[in-house]
């Protein structure tokens, strides 16, 4: 399972992409992925918001993940 990071999220993990390779570590839902990130990188809990995109669409916490999707961490956006 590959996860893309942008903006401040990229700075927090120190990488633009992380790979969750071990079967046991793979989050099965968007909520689980967020929890795993906050547990591993507490800086995420200080952000205004944290969204997840699955196949380049905003995904709610209950969306399930099988690992074949394009997953991205979307910190608060600030275009314009």
């Amino acid at each position, binding site marked *: 399972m590959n996860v893309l990071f942008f*903006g401040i999220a990229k700075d927090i993990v120190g990488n633009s992409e992380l790979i969750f390779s071990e079967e046991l570590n793979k989050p099965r839902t968007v909520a689980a992925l967020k929890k795993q990130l906050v547990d591993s990188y507490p800086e995420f809990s200080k952000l205004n918001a944290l969204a997840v995109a699955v196949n380049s669409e*905003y995904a709610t916490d209950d969306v399930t993940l099988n690992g074949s999707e394009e997953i991205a961490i979307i910190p608060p956006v600030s*275009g314009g």
Partner: protein
Amino acid sequence: MKKIIEIVDTIETAQVYAELSDAKSGGICVFVGTVREFTNEEEVVALEFETYKTMALKEMEKIADRAIEKWNLNKVVLRHAVGEKGVAEPVVVVGASSAHRDACFEACRFLIDTLKETVPIWKKEKFKNKSVWVSAHP
């Protein structure tokens, strides 16, 4: 073409009139976002923009479609720049053309407000001795 959705390295503000010009339209409204020199009295050296491009284009497309339907627009432009931009440079252009002016004024406000809320683009403010991701923290 009815709508133009782009993420570019450099914004050419002059091209937007031709893009929105339309025989059925009686008015064109355009908003240009630019780099401001001061934030809270601190001098900004540059803004740096990055994007999740595939998703950003999809979200911009949705905004354009909603506006076209709601205000019956003839043409729409949504264009955002990425990379480093200096003071007074344009970073975003949105515009609409419609039969009457009320529709394009309202649509233009919706286009920029919604773009700022939903499109995955991030802005880092670079000051003389620090840089800050805008809106990241409370």
